[in-house]
């Protein structure tokens, strides 16, 4: 399907789908009624995409490259994804050729600039067989209004991607993000997702295991305060057997913030030899917050092992006490424990400067 046809179909899909209501389980804590989408197609799009490439790889603005729309089709049953598919104007395209190992991190930065504007940045990432790369993608900027981003990732046979992606939009932004990765035979994605900004954020992170021997590691950190609302949806879809997926989402909440995690491990029939793990851990720092978690397993295969866990808890008084007896003051003791809670996610980031950046954002938001 050419791009114009895709846009037309996406627009139809967008108009057909109703705005999610609170009756929809995934949205029940989030009130979208105030969201005004009238004449959204006429609003100015203000995104600045900057690219920082590495030798031997293709990194260019996204125009009409293939296979756009194959991971996230224009009729994706998601109102905001369809909106972005119909209206996007800016984006990035990354192709790492077969067998090539990019020797330094590739960067894609999407800056949301305008006031009361819209932004629909779209990214397409293709790693050809045997390619290896590290990609840092960030969404930032002072803009407010509706921000809906799409990212499609294809890891072909034996490809390896270390992918760090984070969102640190301004408080007025409403962010709807869908990221979907296809992992082919013996390919591996090592993925870290940071969710920090925006007043209302929906993050959809999905991996589709298409080939035997594929591995996927997804680590997410959400840090929310000041009435921020964060809805996370994850999907580990095992289409074939002998694949592994491991997911850990950790959230820290304070000051009237709310999170709603819903994640599913789906194992199709005959995907024997699947090994999947899913975990959602939440640390609540005061009593004004609200934390929902809904981890789901749907298993139609029998020679496998799937496990999930979810917890909601606060800082452990005993641990705080221990640290105080070692001479740390109360604030420092709390900070140490919060940092330690998020460390399993941050430790996965292989690019030192980006890990620093994560740490600084966390420090600003929840440490005193």
């Amino acid at each position, binding site marked *: 399907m050419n791009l114009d046809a895709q846009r037309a179909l996406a627009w139809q899909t967008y108009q057909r789908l109703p705005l999610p209501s609170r009756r929809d*389980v995934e949205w029940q804590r989030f009130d979208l009624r105030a969201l005004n989408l009238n004449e959204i197609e006429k609003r100015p799009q203000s995104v600045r995409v900057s690219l920082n490439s590495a030798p031997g790889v293709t990194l260019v603005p996204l125009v009409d490259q293939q296979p756009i729309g194959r991971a996230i089709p224009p009729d994706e049953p998601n109102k905001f994804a369809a909106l972005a598919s119909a209206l996007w104007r800016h984006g990035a395209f990354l192709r790492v050729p077969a067998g090539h190992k990019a020797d330094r991190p590739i960067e894609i930065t999407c800056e949301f600039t305008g006031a009361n504007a819209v932004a629909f940045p779209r990214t397409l990432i293709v790693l050809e067989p045997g390619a290896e790369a590290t990609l840092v993608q960030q969404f930032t900027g002072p803009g407010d209004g509706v921000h809906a981003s799409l990212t499609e990732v294809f890891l072909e046979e034996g490809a390896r991607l270390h992918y760090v992606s984070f969102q640190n939009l301004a408080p007025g932004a409403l962010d709807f993000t869908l990221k979907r990765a296809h992992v082919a035979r013996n390919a591996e994605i090592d993925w870290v997702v940071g969710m920090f900004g925006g007043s209302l954020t929906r993050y959809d992170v999905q991996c589709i295991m298409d080939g035997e021997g594929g591995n996927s590691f997804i680590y997410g950190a959400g840090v929310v305060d000041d009435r921020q609302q964060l809805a996370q949806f994850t999907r580990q879809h095992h289409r074939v057997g002998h694949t592994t997926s491991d997911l850990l989402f950790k959230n820290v909440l304070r000051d009237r913030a709310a999170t709603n995690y819903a994640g599913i491990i789906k194992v199709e*029939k*005959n995907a*024997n030899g699947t090994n999947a793990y899913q975990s959602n851990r*939440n640390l*609540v*720092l*005061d*009593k*004004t*917050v*609200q*934390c*929902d*978690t*809904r*981890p*789901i*397993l*749907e*298993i*139609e*295969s*029998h*020679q*496998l*092992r*799937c*496990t*999930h*866990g*979810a*917890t*909601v*808890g*606060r800082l452990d008084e005993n641990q705080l006490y221990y640290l105080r007896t070692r001479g740390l003051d109360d604030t420092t003791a709390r900070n140490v424990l919060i940092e330690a809670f998020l460390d399993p996610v941050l430790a996965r980031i292989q690019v030192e400067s980006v890990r620093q950046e994560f740490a600084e954002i966390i420090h600003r938001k929840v440490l005193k």
Partner: protein
Amino acid sequence: MSAPPPTEPFAGRAYKEGFHDDIKTLKSVPKGLSHAVVDYMCDVKGEPNWMREFRHRSLDLFLKQGIPEWVPGLRDEFHYDEFTYYVSPVEKSSRRWEDVPEEIRRTYDKLGIAKEEQKLLGGLGAQIDSEMAYHNIQESLAKKGVIFLSCDDGMKQYPDIFRQHFAKNIPPEDNKFAALNAAFWSGGSFVYIPKGVKCDIPLSVYFRINAEQFGQFERTLIICEDDSFCHYVEGCSAPIYTTNSLHAAVVEIYVKERARCRYTTIQNWSTDVYNLVTKRSMISAKGVMEWVDGNLGSKRTVKYPSCYMIGEGAHGEVLSLASADKGMWQDAGAKLVFLAPNCSGRINSKSISGHGGRSSYRGLVQVARNATGCRAQVNCDALILDPHSRSDTYPTMEINGDLATIEHEATVSNVSDEQLFYLTSRGLKKEDAVSMIVNGFIEPVVKELPMEFAVEINRLIGLQMEGSVG
């Protein structure tokens, strides 16, 4: 381990309760639901006016309400008009076993619910189709003031206690099937344990469906006053027909301060029964509620025993065991709702899916903002025995505030080759090895059952395991 052959490795498990007896029907109504059926039931039962109004209002509510979207697939599977809503083979509930009509006694003898068993029990009830045929309690318990009657008799003999509690915990507005039950309820138990009385031998009730295309709507009300204790055990079965039957029960339990109640269910309906049950307990301060919920039969079970902790320091616990065999879908689970401070709750769920069966765990843990210092722990383990079966886990946790500690863990796996290899290398036959692993898997639930039931569960699971290893 090689998988069993692709189609029907064996025809499900043997269901020895699937026989049907010719029992003369004394009273029944035409098929289908209507206000006329409600009026007929009120008339033959001689019910007070408030109950008649309540039933009519509930039927209106039932007709208005939809099935919640998350209840999978029930919408188009059957029509409510294909069932008969009231069938009674008895005039009244007898207190002496000898007074129960002989043909019904014969059915119960075949099921092994014989007179002798009463020696082990504090009280025994037997319901066939819509009415209780038998309800009796040991003299010693009766003397302490324990009331154990059919729910209909409870309404007539203890109208004040009854009306104070009936439908206060699960009103007909709660859900479509609770409304259906409220409109057509008949039979079930009324249990009242006075202050400080410990009823340490179980009260047991057996529910039998004998009629075809029938809807059984028993209603149970258990009130444990302050500092009391009771253990209530229910079992059930039905003949195998080619048509469906419907069982929509409502169980309301009140655990008052420092009281403890244990409710054990061994659900073994035949595979043509839709089992759609609402069970809920209200637990006051320092009260303890324990649900032991075994689901081994039925075509479809939709049942989530619930603990609503309304007093400080209350404790709720659910042990759930589901075994989904050929043609079954067990949508079981539990709910813990924390409405008061310093409460605790635990859910331990074990499920086994085999021969194309599907089992789902669906659960809810909810913590209100003022319910500080609450702790909940949820563990779900599922075993899948072959590639035709399916297992799902749908837990939901909704936490307000920061003063609760909530944990959930679930695992889905098969009987691993390593485990089998180890046991067979020790000289066990493969079937015995599988059986041993499965028994070990369900042990935490089974050990909580009364002896006779534990033996029965092991037998049923054993039968289900036959032929599952190739």
